[in-house]
């Protein structure tokens, strides 16, 4: 084991961390919004909405993300004249945006299932109680349904966030030099797979460790009713 080489590797791989995080944050954020609407469609959209989301989830969960990425990056390049005409070519030309789109569409499928579970876990009694207090429509949704659904969905959502962090590594296959892309290049140049693997692995583990802590903080923050009450005088 060569410590000097590993330190050098660490410094190089560190330059890929912002890109990895950027890919993850962008696609988790966009995927979350898309998933929110998909899960709403599944719950209140009737048979057509349910059928559509079920098909969407089946396709994106049933096939490898890498193939989805290739279809978007290489496959859509085939329609260049058409895309140029409608002004979308600037997006599909860039590997970065293709990776973001593929990651977003993919995570939306998983996340919408998590959100759907959360929405369906809101009990009828809670909704009834809110109605009895005179709440209805958007207020009921914003004040009662959404917070409870989020609380239910959070643990599973934390898993999905970590899976997405790891999934950004696939972007390296379409020439994006994030942490795994740099690691792959270093391994191919130096042939010291083990050392590079340890350094890159440690970086990913550190990031996922931070993310799990962050999720724990959010969970703590969203469930004040489960916290111990401070002793009161009354």
């Amino acid at each position, binding site marked *: 084991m060569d410590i000097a080489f590993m330190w050098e590797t660490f410094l190089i791989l560190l330059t890929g961390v912002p890109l990895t995080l950027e890919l993850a944050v962008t696609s988790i954020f966009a995927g979350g919004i898309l998933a929110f609407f998909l899960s709403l469609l599944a719950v209140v959209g009737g048979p057509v909405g349910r059928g559509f989301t079920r098909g969407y989830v089946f396709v994106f969960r049933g096939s490898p993300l890498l193939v989805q990425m290739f279809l978007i990056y290489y496959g859509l*390049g085939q329609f260049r004249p058409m895309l140029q005409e409608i002004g979308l070519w600037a997006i599909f030309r860039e590997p970065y945006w293709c990776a973001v789109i593929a990651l977003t569409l993919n995570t939306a499928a998983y996340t919408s299932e998590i959100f759907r579970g959360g929405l369906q876990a809101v009990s009828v009694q809670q909704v009834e109680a809110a109605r009895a207090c005179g709440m209805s429509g958007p207020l009921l949704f914003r004040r009662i349904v959404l917070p409870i659904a989020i609380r239910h969905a959070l643990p599973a959502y934390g898993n999905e966030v970590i899976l997405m962090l790891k999934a950004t590594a696939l972007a390296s296959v379409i020439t994006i030099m994030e942490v795994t892309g740099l690691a792959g290049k270093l391994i191919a140049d130096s042939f010291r*797979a*083990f050392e590079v693997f340890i350094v890159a692995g440690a970086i990913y583990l550190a990031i996922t460790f931070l993310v799990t802590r962050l999720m724990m903080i959010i969970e703590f923050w969203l469930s004040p009713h489960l916290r111990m009450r401070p002793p009161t005088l009354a």
Partner: protein
Amino acid sequence: MELIDRYLALVGFGETGWGALLLSASAMTLGVSVCGFLTGTLLGSVVTFMKLSRYIVLRWLADGYTTVLRGVPDLLVIYLFYFGGSAFLGSLGGLFGYEGFIGMPAFLTGTLALGVVSAAYQSEVFRGAFKSVAGGELEAASAVGMRPWPKFRRIVAPLVLRYAIPGLGNTWQLVLKESALISITGLVELLRQSQIAAGSTRRPFEFYLTAIVLYLVITWASSIAFRHLEARTMRGTRSSL
């Protein structure tokens, strides 16, 4: 309908069609997934026994294994085995006076990488299943005078398998999709074959779309197979729910 004709000419079984190659590549995808999954079951069983061991060092090692392999992108593990394996074979060749490049066989790389990754997931599935074996059943087995090995083979193992099958089904789907990553080592599985076809015909859209459909067929068929397997192992039990 000209569009459909043109598509069928590309991926069908005609003279210019890539259908036969795509199908055999799908078989390769299944093959490397099965080998990787079974390697994972074998290694995962060892890791499970380490997790359930009474020695804390073994438990730590096994937990560390799961944490690392689940926390690191699988692509990195594939790089590790592909380039690391080639470097290892090269230095092994050097010992015998051979100074050329010895490439790691792609199928072996795939089997090892998928095996090592899926072992981390499978060991967690098995650990949960072991914990679900009810104490009463073990007591009953001891009460009729069963020794540890027969007790394991005839009581514990079948129950563990029954409890583990839903989780194993998830792991299998994961392995099946991860197998697409093996294409970077040059193994001609479904994705690599689609890349080759897309490159030589310059019709990437049609071929990647076909690849997705073929993957969907495989994952869908295996979900049905696992449902049947689950029903079979549950035979003779009545759900209390």
